[in-house]
């Protein structure tokens, strides 16, 4: 290239740079002078004017926190409300001796002596003129005791505030959630002006999902304050707008029946209306009392909940992933019909075990002597494992996985509760992706076999199982599970109902195939040989169901259980799914009792009482 070559001339570049710096410096001086001139204009020329503005009575905008929306069940029972409660508040700048005051309060049993350290930290983190709540939910005794000694506590006052109250306590906690103090992480996420004057925010489940609607809109009062910030007069209001009331799909009576039927055992019960996706029952057991959270839990109480072996804070219905066991047999049978892998009336002889061609390993049936000749109907009713081992090898893993996914297994249902688990539907592709060791990446034929009875890698949440059951009941029509039936405007009382959200249907249009599955599931409860006939025989209405048992194959090694505890926790999980009435299903339910051993004996009675309670009530 024949361009003129320019060479760096350091001397001239240095001079050029210096000139530019001088220009920059002039620029800097110019702009600084501009700011200085402005300051002089405000502080010298405008002093009298601005001084008068700041001297006179000052108008201050004071936040007025909105009332949190109420929560109702589907028939109008209150699930969460705001009740007045008395709390002790302290204004640091009005307290002459903080340590003495706190010690005296502890002596009078108004605060706990062991909380003094934490209270000090809380007080230090606030401004000196803020009113800080140091004790919530005073009872009448406390109020009286404080009133007598009031002169001993300058700067401490009793205030009435609204506190969140959950009338149903433990039975509803996992479904509704609770409110608690705003923590540092939440403080960063939210717009602080929206939460001025409030110290509570929804923490989990409904209280959290619909936080924005429940919270409402903060109002402002224009008040006249003196130089020390004391309110002299209120000039005007921009009223707070209360949060929307929520009407949930839950049915309280069914919920309570299910809660009592679980009797504190570990497990979950979820019931769904098949034609809308509305969640009627949502139990995770054991549970905790949401009222304790909204009134402020001590560290000790919280630790006790967190370290409890039964994990009461764990939402099993939403986040517990269990092997579904035999409860998926109806779905796989439908898959077999849909793909023509099985002809339903052909009888297959069950000898109590199954072998893959050329292999010696025996896949055993739960009934060691075998079921004898089995068609599809009997295989579902009696839960014959061998029949489904064969069905699995004929359907093959890819079609099987695809069919399970059509019922929503292996992916989040998208329910309006946060933190849902997706479960797992395994297939060869998943195995390749998930294992780093080459040898583990291969999909073995035996894994296809055991997937046929819902064992192996397959995992589903109780919510997913209930959704899949509802889908069976609704003949393949799917609706997103939801807890929200409608919203009520608290001022006008006007209710706006939400519409069911249809999901992609299963895609099996042959009604005869559905009839076969429904009739086989009916036989589980009400046939001569059904696994749960003891539960279903005397029932006044026609029900359909399927039992399941899931092996517990992992026990945490690092936790110390005593011998009895281990054996109890090694027992199989009991599962049962059911829907009713058979002809026009209105409720579908999934029950899991951890270590309950037998689906038909332990879980099925719970399912039946949920169904009967709901249908008796709504008919």
């Amino acid at each position, binding site marked *: 290239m024949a361009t003129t070559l*320019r*060479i*760096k*001339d350091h001397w001239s*570049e*240095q001079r*050029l*740079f*210096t000139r*530019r*710096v001088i220009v*920059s*410096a002039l620029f*800097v001086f110019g*702009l*600084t002078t*501009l*700011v*200085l001139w*402005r*300051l*002089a204009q*405000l*502080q*010298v020329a*405008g*002093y009298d*004017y*601005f*001084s008068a*503005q*700041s*001297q006179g009575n*000052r108008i*201050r*905008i004071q936040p007025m926190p909105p009332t949190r929306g109420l929560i109702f069940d589907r028939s109008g029972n209150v699930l969460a409300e705001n009740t007045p409660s008395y709390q002790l508040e302290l204004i640091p700048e009005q307290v002459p001796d903080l340590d003495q005051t706190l010690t005296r309060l502890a002596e009078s049993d108004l605060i706990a002596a062991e909380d003094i350290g934490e209270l000090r930290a809380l007080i*230090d*983190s*606030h*401004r*000196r003129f*803020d009113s800080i709540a140091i004790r919530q939910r005073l009872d009448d005794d406390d109020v009286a005791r404080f009133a007598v000694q009031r002169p001993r506590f300058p700067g401490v006052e009793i205030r009435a505030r609204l506190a969140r109250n959950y009338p149903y306590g433990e039975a509803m906690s996992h479904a509704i959630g609770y409110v608690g103090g705003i923590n540092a992480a939440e403080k*960063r*996420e939210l717009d602080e002006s929206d939460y001025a004057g409030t110290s509570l925010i929804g923490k989990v489940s409904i209280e959290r999902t619909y936080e924005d609607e429940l919270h409402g809109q903060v109002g402002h009062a224009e008040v006249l*304050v003196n*130089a020390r*910030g004391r309110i002299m007069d209120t000039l005007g209001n921009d009223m707070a707008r209360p949060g929307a009331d929520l009407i949930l799909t839950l049915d309280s009576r069914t919920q309570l029946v299910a809660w009592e039927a679980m009797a504190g055992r570990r497990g979950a019960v979820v019931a769904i209306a098949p034609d809308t996706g509305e969640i009627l029952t949502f139990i995770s057991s054991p549970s905790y009392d949401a009222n304790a959270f909204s009134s402020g839990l001590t560290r000790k109480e919280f630790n006790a909940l967190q370290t409890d072996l039964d994990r009461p804070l764990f939402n099993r219905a939403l986040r517990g992933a269990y092997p579904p066991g035999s409860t998926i047999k109806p779905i796989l049978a439908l898959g077999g019909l849909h793909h023509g892998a099985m002809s339903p009336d052909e009888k297959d002889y069950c000898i109590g075990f199954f072998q893959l061609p050329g292999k010696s390993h025996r896949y055993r049936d739960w009934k060691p002597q075998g079921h004898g000749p089995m068609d599809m109907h009997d295989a579902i009713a009696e839960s014959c494992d061998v029949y489904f081992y064969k069905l699995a090898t004929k359907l093959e893993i890819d079609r099987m996985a695809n069919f399970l996914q059509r019922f929503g297994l292996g992916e989040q249902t998208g329910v309006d509760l946060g933190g849902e688990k997706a479960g797992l539907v395994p297939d060869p592709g998943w195995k390749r992706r998930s294992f780093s060791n080459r040898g583990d990446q291969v999909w073995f034929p035996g894994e296809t076999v055991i997937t046929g009875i819902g064992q192996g890698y397959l995992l589903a949440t109780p919510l997913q199982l209930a959704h899949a059951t509802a889908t069976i009941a609704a003949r393949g029509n799917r609706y997103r599970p939801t807890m929200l039936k409608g919203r009520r405007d608290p001022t006008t009382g006007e209710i706006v109902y939400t519409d069911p959200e249809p999901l992609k249907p299963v895609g099996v249009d042959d009604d005869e195939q559905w009839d076969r599955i429904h009739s086989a599931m009916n036989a589980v409860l009400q046939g001569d040989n059904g696994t749960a006939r003891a539960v279903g025989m005397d029932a006044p209405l026609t029900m359909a169901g399927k039992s399941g048992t899931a092996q517990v194959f992992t026990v945490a090694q690092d936790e110390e259980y005593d011998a009895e505890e281990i054996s109890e926790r090694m027992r199989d999980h009991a599962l049962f799914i059911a829907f009713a009435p058979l002809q026009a299903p209105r409720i579908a339910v999934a029950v899991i009792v951890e270590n309950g051993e037998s689906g038909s004996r332990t879980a099925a009675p719970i399912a039946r009482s949920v169904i009967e309670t709901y249908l008796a009530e709504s008919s």
Partner: protein
Amino acid sequence: MSAVLLGSRRQRDLTALARLLRGLHLDGFLLAGIAAVMAVGLLAGFSAGGQSSTVVWGQAVRMGAALATMVLIAQVPPVWLRRTSPWAYAMGFGLLALVLIAGDVGKGAQRWLDFGLRFQPSEIMKLAVPMMLAALLHDRPLPPSAGLIAACLGLIFAPVALIALQPDLGTAILIALSGAAVVFLAGIGAAYIIGALGLVFVSLPALWYLVMHDYQKRRVLTLINPDSDPLGAGYHIIQSKIAIGSGGLFGKGWLNGSQGQLEFLPERSTDFIFAVIGEEFGLLGAVSLLLIYLFIVGRGLVIATTAQDTFSRLLAGSISLTFFFYIFVNTAMVTGLVPVVGVPLPLVSLGGTSMVTLLAGFGILMSIQTHRKLLAQ
């Protein structure tokens, strides 16, 4: 001359101090200026932060961390800085792109998490952009050719566009200005400068109608007439002017500013802390603070002119001028000269991670100053 008048003992102490500073590669003038501003920051922070000692301690810890970063960076010779410039730029750019892709996943509730992630790459770019440009121009003949200028503008535009898309217009503008400062100091011709200014002027209507959000437009409009919406968008400016104006010549005294203490002034501990200073320390205090700032900027420019290679000169100049932009934009905003943009008062506003970046910049200035003589000998 004055050294002769000093007692010999004091002279010895002074030379010992000078030796210590030099051993640590620190510049005494800059350090003194920074310390003075930080002291003002802690005083004003205590007053504006509701007189809470935890708030001030938190700020002191942040200052300590930032100072440590500065000392650390001052040890790195400018030559190394120059060699790492392209890598720093590439890394910052990559992270910016990544954040933009990842940022789309979680909108709504995840907004602030995104903010936490997105913050860091743009912080890197505050230094990486001027470093990259200075390194590029380092061994090229100056003033730069038209092609070189185009390359520089490209290197500025790409990250600025990504940051503006986030959207974080304030940071984007400051980074663009830091790059523009390098190009200006490199000696581009007057024709280019006039052309660029003309272009900005012409594109203002387009900016107004196509780029700016409604809330940004409202800020500009309230600047012209704050009383049109005294409880809404105009509230900040009105309260800020009352705070400063009522401070008068000598101020109302520390912790006695009613505007700040009674919470009339919004964001008084962050972007509007200059108004608290104006109210409590008066014109005298505000002007003193500005003079200390001016001293720091001046010292930075002196370091730039005495630097011995092109990279060091350009980088030192750009860092000093960018620091001044911060001061000007913030003080002009608080006094109602320019619209409200979210730029903190450097080294004084409470919170924020930008202090680490600022002091990293001063670390570079100190490195340039203190490695100079070693190179010359």
